[in-house]
């Protein structure tokens, strides 16, 4: 059982947390205007990175606050956690486009 550092409450056992998947997937500004494919990617497609991954967590059994984290999905180690109102240092670096090489 891991300890996860809630940015507010400090380290707590992982059972107190709810996992929220990939971070920084914004709701489209104008959903009506995006294509079916773009919409499908928003609804269903999330990165599944092996290694450093920016993701969302909620301290659901504690202060109920959502926060972002950088965690290694291979080792499960948390590198850093970020309040939502704080700058997200790794966001742009990690949220690289994944379709650049596809035909």
């Amino acid at each position, binding site marked *: *059982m891991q*300890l996860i550092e809630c940015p507010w409450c400090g380290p707590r056992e992982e059972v107190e947390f709810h996992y929220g998947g990939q971070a920084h997937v914004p709701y489209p500004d104008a959903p*009506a205007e995006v294509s079916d494919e773009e919409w499908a990617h928003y609804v269903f497609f999330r990165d599944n990175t092996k290694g450093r991954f920016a993701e*969302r967590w909620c301290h659901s059994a504690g202060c109920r606050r959502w926060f972002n984290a950088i965690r290694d999905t291979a080792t499960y180690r948390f590198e850093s956690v970020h309040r939502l109102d704080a700058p997200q240092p790794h966001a742009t670096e990690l949220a690289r486009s994944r379709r650049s090489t596809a035909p």
Partner: protein
Amino acid sequence: MTSPFRTAEGGRIDRATTLEFTFDGQTHTGHPGDTLASALLAAGRHQIATSIKLGRPRGIAAAWAEDPGGLVQIEEPFPEPMLLATTVELHDGLVAHGLPGQGRLAEISDSARYDAVHHHVDVLVVGAGPAGLAAALTAARSGARVALVDDQSEAGGSLLAGTDRLDGAPAPEWVAAAVAELAGHPEVLHLQRTTAFGSYDDGFVLALERRTDHLGTAAPKHVSRQRVWRLRARSVVVATGAHERPVVFSDNDRPGTMLAGAARTFLHRYGVLPGREAVVFTTNDSAYDAALDLHRAGVRVQAVVDARPVGSPRREECERAGIRVLSGAVVTGTQGVERVTHALVARFADGEVGAGSAIACDLLLVSGGWNPAVHLFSQARGRLRYDEVLGAFLPAEELEGLSVTGAAAGVFDLAGCLADGQRVARAALTALAVRPPGEDRLPTAPEPVTPAAPLVLWRVPDTSGAGGHTSFVDLQRDATVADIERAVGAGLRSIEHIKRYTTIGTAHDQGKTSGVLTSGITAELLGIPVQATGTTTFRPPYTPVAFAALAGRDRGRLFDPERVTSLHDWHVAAGAVFEDVGQWKRPRFYPRPGEGMEAAVLRECVAARTGVGILDGSTLGKIDVQGPDAAVLLDRLYTNMISSLKVGSVRYGVMCGVDGMVIDDGTVLRLAEDRFLLLTTTGGAAKVLDWMEEWAQTEWPDLRVHCTSVTEQWNTFPVVGPRSRDVIGAVFPQVDVANEAFPFMTWRDTTLDGVPVRLARISFSGELAFEVYVNPWYGVAVWERLLGAGRPCGITPYGTETMHVLRAEKGYPIIGQDTDGTVTPHDLGMAWAVSKKKPDFVGKRSFARQANQDPLRKQLVGLLPVDRRTVLPEGSQIVELHPDGQLPPPPVPMLGHVTSSYRSAELARPFALALVKGGRSRIGDTVHVPVDGTLVPVEVTGSVLVDPEGARRDG
């Protein structure tokens, strides 16, 4: 029975007390401090069972958890399958027998208690041998919070099994002093009989404490039998020692064959001679201690057979004692049937076995070196490296917050272990910014004698003619060198494949003695380095743990919380039959004496449709939403418009996921311009609050809105039926309950004897109805007041079943029953609840997808069985017959399924709701439902079957 192999004195047993036990039907005696194994050895019994595949006799081969031979079944005091005789503490009345294959579970349930405890420390030391005790003392002396856990009945580890002296006195005296000192430190938790079985992230170590097993039938019932310690340590010190490794040779499984160190343990700790005539076969110096100790205790040591050509510096010591030492020799096999009678000894040089002879013995001790017990380190994902000199795997790296010391780290001399334990503890303290103690004296240990280099010898070439088929690697699986050879011959290279092909390491001991041997032998056969072969993965638990111990107290009524409303005791007293809805217990119906469910529900329905009924609806989720942007948030999350709702009014709303599928529904009360009370389904309450928080916090943090759960803050009592106005009017005379003054879908605040009460005209039945909201402190009182006022109208409490019938008659869906995550509001016929004005809301975009346009989407419709008798089972499938009236052959195309089905008092016939492909276009059609082998014709109807005009809701 006598104990002919018990020494005259010595050992850490209480000779003043005699315990009686039964093994394989024979009664024996032993003493407190004995294990089942030591008591059996004292009686002269080595063989415990026969082997699983080959039926060969097997005996006690080690002294603790690494023993591959002595598996037993406990019968009394309570049946427990498959334990090691070496780890079962003796108690009066123990009944056990040897176990060749499968253990037996008790047929009765286990009434023992089990529990778990969380404990936090700065430093956790696992293992109370010399290194662990030294580490624990250092940590304790610093004032740090310390836990010391050890799996045996008393502290000391190897110090209890030898003749070491510390500070000039027998080492156990130092152990006793150390234990006493630890007991004097208030921040030290010292647990014996406690096995650390799993090592996880962030210093989390799980340990099983066997609290009352050793007490037998005297175990107190109100104390847990076993306890799982959930230890959270800032720093873990692993001082788990080492397991002695055998050498494989032909017929190495014969009872009387034992690890050399184990014989010392049986002698010094338990006062037992494991034999009368011994041969000691070794590849290293440690076994010389066994030879000399046994000799001093009166065992005739026939020979020390040392595989090394040069032998040992200990040779002279032996020879002085009259023990023959054969250097450059090996044991190639044994003779005997159920017990060793001879060891076959032969010359050994350059890997070749020469001429040999048989030496008579009843005890063959073996030492092939030592395997550090690196399990916890490895579980914590520490990498291992193969040490060519030791022939063993050692920690290859430092882990943050976890260090390994003593024999577990490859330190094998006493002075070295003590110093290493202290060093590691001081380093751990320093890393934690705790100042190590100034006064931290180690006991004086004898100068270590530098041992001669051990020989790494996995197996003795089989000269018996058995071709390796009797050279056992994993005794518990009857797996041999020949099996490994066969696996390699089959083309297998990976140690994981070898393990699976041979089943080595998969039995009770999980390869404690066989694992490294297999790596070594495989590497030898493949001609590759042992490092390249590696080990199979060390997995928790280190030793087996009873299921019930892990279940702890989460059993029976504590298995999962039961949530109840403030009316629960009333419901129980009223004879309610309950239904599980999520974690809630809800009354399903209230049978009168002699009444079954069907009769009760029909009666309850009639009351609500013709008189008045009352429901405890308090389990409905309730969320208080406040803030200037509350309406904005709700507009984005509900499919319909909430912002246009007037203060004082109520609106039904639907929520969808981003995929456009319905996730919840309920009513919304606008309490103020900036305040709403949301009602959710019982099962959806937590999900909806989380959903709102997630959007509000992560997507729209600019919205000024706060959501607070008030589910338990309000009792909700729908008072339902044409006479409900009378009841509400009587209880709340100050409220004008006339339809014009208090219209449908509005709410009013009032008081009852000064207690605030909220009334709302909401109907989930189609009838005139009022929902009464009150603080649950007053819930029972208000409920009884309503019942009192309703008595003249025959007010009838009803449960969820009647609620379901009433709503289904009106075509109101239950989310999660009439939907399954694939249903849109349109599918439910609720296009009216989907705003066309709002540019967006969650789920809207998905409605535009191709699959959502399919005219054959399943739609909610009503079904009326044509025979007016059959209650269609919920879940039934709906089919279309061939024109000839026959069912097509499988796969039969299905049109949909029955989601809700009831007998209707109002309609005087059964009816159902169903999701049917293109359902609304089939209204009027007859389709069929297979029920118990017959095809029941049903007519497709609209989903509203009672009062489609809505004439009743205003009374």
